[in-house]
């Protein structure tokens, strides 16, 4: 039920936070290894979310419900006025 409040195992034990952190470090290493020579590519590392497992992060922060939007068609729209 998406309406149910998220109740993670809180307060989280230091062991759980440490395990999430270790998993984060491995994930950073993997993400940074894939496209090292690519120009301006994103880089990943430790931040305020590193002590969360991905499923916890998703449950807390990724709570936007998707909707199906109609496809934009330039033909049916008025021309966009000049913008300075």
């Amino acid at each position, binding site marked *: 039920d998406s309406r149910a409040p998220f109740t993670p195992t809180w307060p989280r034990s230091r062991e759980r936070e440490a395990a999430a952190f270790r998993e984060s470090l491995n994930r950073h290493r993997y993400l940074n290894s894939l496209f090292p020579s690519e120009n301006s590519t994103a880089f*990943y590392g430790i931040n305020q979310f590193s002590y969360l497992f991905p499923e916890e992060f998703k449950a807390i922060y*990724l709570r936007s419900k*998707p909707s199906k939007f109609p496809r934009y068609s330039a033909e049916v729209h008025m021309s966009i006025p000049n913008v300075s």
Partner: protein
Amino acid sequence: LPLRFDWRDKQVVTQVRNQQMCGGCWAFSVVGAVESAYAIKGKPLEDLSVQQVIDCSYNNYGCNGGSTLNALNWLNKMQVKLVKDSEYPFKAQNGLCHYFSGSHSGFSIKGYSAYDFSDQEDEMAKALLTFGPLVVIVDAVSWQDYLGGIIQHHCSSGEANHAVLITGFDKTGSTPYWIVRNSWGSSWGVDGYAHVKMGSNVCGIADSVSSIFV
């Protein structure tokens, strides 16, 4: 299109906020767009109440999640007047809706548009220039670890789960990118912003795009 454009340069974008442990990204993005739309129209730039949207948008679930489309429908249909953030501050949890008298000053919208701009990101950029910052929904699973640079991989389209606000774009370099304001505080990403590659619908950034009219 200009090579670079950012509504922040016009001083019409409020500071990055922090949703804390509240799943209210959908409200932050919509309120951010209303703030900018009014500022673009010449009104003073000010923080409006995200908590009002979280508490009062009856077709959403507050800090337990919501839809930008439902929030826009609610704002438009009910002609809700958003009050200032200082009058209805953010508490990072659901609360009872606080009603204000009809004579209380506030900021309502005249309408909105909502389109899928996939494969048409140049048209999307025109909408950004014309109407102001864009409310978009992205797949932000990999954003948990983002520190900087241009997001070009590790993102899927079709799995939207996080609402953000596009304030501009930059095509001056070899990899053009959208400038995306997040609501995870200014210490996340690039001063609270993410850079997402333009032109490939990376993270599904062009799938669910809304503009607000005031």
